[in-house]
């Protein structure tokens, strides 16, 4: 087995050691479980959305069956930039739908998404967006800010530099102003 070290702030994830990917996954799912509960989802809904059984959801909500170290690393992953959070989570889960749920649940940031008229409608952003937040409308990309996680993968890949994404305060003020 290849040992991979990913440096994340102060922590080091050693995929060969204690923090096996599934432990980190449980940490991420723990964070999502807590957030979903806060948003009023019941245990059955949470279990369905994250692909767990209800007893695990119940354990997580009672702070059991999850190592505090895993949660700590999950917190570190969550606090990396959105692109790293997204790509790491997907690399661990290998499931687009669950990745989307976790990112959407844990990421409490808001974005304004602007597509300039120079967009040629090539659809590269549609293909690239792991959050499925982009569609083409009359040969122009349209980004649903609700699903945008701010990873900026679309911005990087756009051949005509037509996408602008800015983080705004949750109250709606532009943080970049």
């Amino acid at each position, binding site marked *: 087995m290849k040992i991979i070290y990913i440096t994340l702030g102060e922590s080091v994830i050693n995929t060969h050691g204690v923090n096996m990917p599934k432990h980190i996954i449980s940490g991420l799912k723990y964070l999502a479980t807590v957030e979903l509960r806060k948003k009023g989802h019941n245990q059955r809904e949470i279990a369905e959305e994250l692909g767990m059984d209800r007893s695990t959801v119940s354990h997580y909500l009672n702070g059991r069956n999850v190592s505090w170290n895993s949660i700590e690393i999950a917190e570190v992953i969550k606090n990396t930039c959105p692109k790293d959070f997204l790509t790491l989570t997907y690399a661990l889960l290998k499931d687009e739908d669950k990745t989307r749920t976790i990112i959407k649940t844990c990421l409490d940031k808001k974005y304004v998404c602007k597509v300039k*008229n*120079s*967009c*040629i*409608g*090539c*659809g*590269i952003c*549609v*293909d*690239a967006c792991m959050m*499925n937040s982009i569609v*083409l409308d*009359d*040969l*122009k990309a349209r980004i649903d800010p609700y699903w945008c996680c701010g990873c900026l993968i679309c911005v990087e890949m756009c*051949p*005509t530099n*037509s996408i602008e994404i800015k983080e705004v305060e949750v109250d709606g003020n532009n943080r970049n102003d």
Partner: protein
Amino acid sequence: METTEMIEGKDISVERTGAEDRKLKFKNELCGSCGLCEKICPVTAIEVNPTGAMVRTEQDASKIEIDESKCVLCGMCSSICPYDALDLEIEGKSIKELEEYPKLIKSSEIDDEACIYCKACETACPPGAITIARELPDRSKLVSGEIEIDKETCVKCGICEEMCPADAIELDYKFPTSDDPTIASDINVDKDKCVYCLVCKKACPVDAIKAVCRICSYGDYDIKAEDSEIIGNSDIDAETCVNCGWCEDICPVDAAKVTKPFEGKVTIDEETCQGCETCVMACPCNALSFPESAESGDVEDKLHIDEKYCIYCGACERACPVNAIDVERTKINCTPIKSKSWEKAFESVKD
């Protein structure tokens, strides 16, 4: 998401798999080397190989090259191509069928009601896209008369057979024998072939043929109109048709109607033109030609263009090694463009 390129012979396809599968297909045979795809490509992924070299020499290469690392499969090249050599498919469906993509308005039609099936368009059509199938009336139904050979008087000389323009008379030749000292056993007229021209009657040295043309004597009252009808049908192969207007112009009965994708103007600088003929060879529409002087010593134009046949694609301009040709597109006939960037891109190929 991955972009891959496949080359089959001289045809190219670039494919991207992802949320929706996109495939750009290039058919070398249809390409006119006009360079509009290269001009409109927003990511400079297309390079058109030198037109002159392509038309003057045998080349193994495709007329264009697509860099799959640059191509974003937006479809602009496919939308502007006047020769339909490029086609972008999204989820297996050509963007020519998708409402949101602009399409060039171009068409060529032959009205079968008006067409007389003379085949002028078939002969003139530069890409050979027109097929005229016609069924001619039975010749025997267009003539009327009587003919009879008096076999007793006939000496079987064969003069009538030799002179008959319709090959209607046949003698059964034989070698004369002592028991039957004749040179032919029989002579017959095929009345389906005979046109009652009376040449045989006039030529016969022994006046053995009695023949009369009823039409000469009484007019064609006994010819039925339906018997002289020419049945046919015309077909324009939409894929290879370049909408150049040759059929419309050459048709003697105005049965062909052509809508061209571009409007514009071509200017030839006679001073600069060296008469190398590359443009003449490159033009997919046969709009250019070298006039032949009527008499030696007459000075004609070096190069002749008839814009009736030109679609302003710019292939000649690209082909000219000395930049003696200027093709200006003033209007692009296309369906409404909703996207600002596409509108700008279409504008950019006017010049």
